[in-house]
């Protein structure tokens, strides 16, 4: 059974990789966007889904990755790879230094602290001359969507494989233990601070790589779009929609919600955002555990599944 599952996933990856040769230009662009969002969702999955620390600040890593590439390529004339590495370094430094302070907080305080981090970084970067202040940076144009697509796909595969490895490792069990009962985990000998910072750093690495790829693809970054705060909510919703704490849930969530949003934007256009908001509200009410949970429980419970969700969560 499991072998079949793995084979299907491998087939899926090959199919995705082949898209740039068969799909239209628009679809490739949509694909790059969806893949990068899926990477962000997986990054959040590590810290939010497995460790249980709902971070609203992963957009900081995304922005740091973007500016890493931007500064390296525009101000220092370095190649793209150096820029990506620089972005990762920025992300890791940030995660380790500020992460330690912020990860001491619990629950909604942690969420707000990461949100504050996101706001502060945006405000700080819009004052940094090296980063072009609020006007931003214009990167050298590269006309190769196929390359970006494959890069994004490769990144997603690495991220998902990392999560798959996490589910099988001591590190992963430690994270889940932290999520379920942090004090108990600490008593049992889990080094909670180390594990949390590691999880935060891992999430940061993937997010910053995604940001770096996005920056070079779009060729233009400014603080508002690089540190886009709404990305935080988007990645969380996508993960929750697909199923937080699962291996493929965030990927599915990201793809489905991106598709819905894109279709709405090109068909209904003016009311696209409105529908998207309604989808979010409906999803949280009827399926708070995500698609992964539906897939697991719907076969037995049928339509009563949605009613059960409401009954379990309402006052």
């Amino acid at each position: 059974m499991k072998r079949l599952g793995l084979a299907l996933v491998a087939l899926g990856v090959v199919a995705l990789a082949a898209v740039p040769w068969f799909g239209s230009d628009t679809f490739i662009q949509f694909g790059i966007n969806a893949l990068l969002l899926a990477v962000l969702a997986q990054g959040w999955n590590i810290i939010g889904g497995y460790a249980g620390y709902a971070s609203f600040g992963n957009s900081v890593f995304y922005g740091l990755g973007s500016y890493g590439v931007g500064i390296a390529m525009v101000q220092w004339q370095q190649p793209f790879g150096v820029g990506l590495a620089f972005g990762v370094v920025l992300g890791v430094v940030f995660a380790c230094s500020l992460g330690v302070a912020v990860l001491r907080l619990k629950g909604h305080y942690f969420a707000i602290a990461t949100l504050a981090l996101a706001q502060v970084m945006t405000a700080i970067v819009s004052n940094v001359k090296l980063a072009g202040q609020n006007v931003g940076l214009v990167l050298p144009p590269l006309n190769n969507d196929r390359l970006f697509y494959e890069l994004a796909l490769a990144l997603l595969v690495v991220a998902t494989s990392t999560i798959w490895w996490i589910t099988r490792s001591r590190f992963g069990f430690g994270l889940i233990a932290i999520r379920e009962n942090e004090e108990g985990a600490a008593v049992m000998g889990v080094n909670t601070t180390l594990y949390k910072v590691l999880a935060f750093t891992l999430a940061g690495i993937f997010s910053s790589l995604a940001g770096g790829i996005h920056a070079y693809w779009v060729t233009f970054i400014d603080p508002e779009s690089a540190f886009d705060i709404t990305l935080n909510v988007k990645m969380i919703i996508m993960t929750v929609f697909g199923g937080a704490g699962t291996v493929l849930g965030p990927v599915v969530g990201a793809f489905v919600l991106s598709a819905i949003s894109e279709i709405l934007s090109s068909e209904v256009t003016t009311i696209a955002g409105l529908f998207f908001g309604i989808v979010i509200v409906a999803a949280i009410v009827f399926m708070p555990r995500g698609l992964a949970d539906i897939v697991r429980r719907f076969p037995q419970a049928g339509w009563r599944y949605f009613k059960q969700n409401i009954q379990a969560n309402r006052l």
Partner: protein
Amino acid sequence: MDLLSQILVNGILLGGLYAVMALGLALVWGVLNIVNLAHGAFIMLGGYLSWYLFTVAHVDPFLGLPITAVVMFGLGYVLQRGLLNLVVKAPMFNTLLITFGLEVVITYLAQLAFSADFRTINPPYAGGSWQIGPIALPIARFVAFGVAIALTLGMWVFLLRTRLGRAIRATAQNLVAARLYGVEPRHLYAVTFGLGIGLAGAAGGLYGTVSQINPYIGAALTAKSFAISIIGGLDNPLGVLVGGLFLGVVESLTTLYIGPTFADVASFGILLLVLVVRPSGLLGRTA
């Protein structure tokens, strides 16, 4: 010296406005543990309501605040009873996500209903200032400051001294015990949320007299309200006033001495500092 005094006065008055904005958020969050990301959107709706009352029905914007507050209370009650009560017992951040979805919906509906142009509430007597020595005291902001003090004290008295206020706090702290005593929690939750939204609506009416209303002001106001609530502390309505004043003064001083583009760095930097060093806020009891 005159400039500094003026800047300090500016900061205090700004702080009053901030406090009014944050009061509703802090109430709902501190008492019900509901983090309302749509808070700013409700401020915006209250602003439009006050605008219509002033421009179409010719009701004085300050005297009309109670009307706005009552209507928004009704809206909040219905929303909580009909929608938010469905997710109250889910993991906390589900309310975060659902209120985010609400914010998107409300903003779009506002754009469809009111279009994107801006409205101002311009009562002829309130646009100017009173001159006290070398200090100019903007009238509208001064009134907002007065309302802030009144509402904060009112909230404090309500929550800590009245029966209904104590019932609300008791329900939030211990659902089972509350039920045993015959309290209907769904109704109380809805009343509390309604209060929070009513306060937001009143803040919107005030906001319209000092700034302008358009469908997109919500997000920034929510972020500010968050900062103020945390800095002041969620336990006590007086904390919101302290938090607001503190932030208003810090921002004004930062603009003068460092630069206008650093105001946000200062506010959110302080928020971060408070969270890391003293999460219960300036006026909160240390946990």
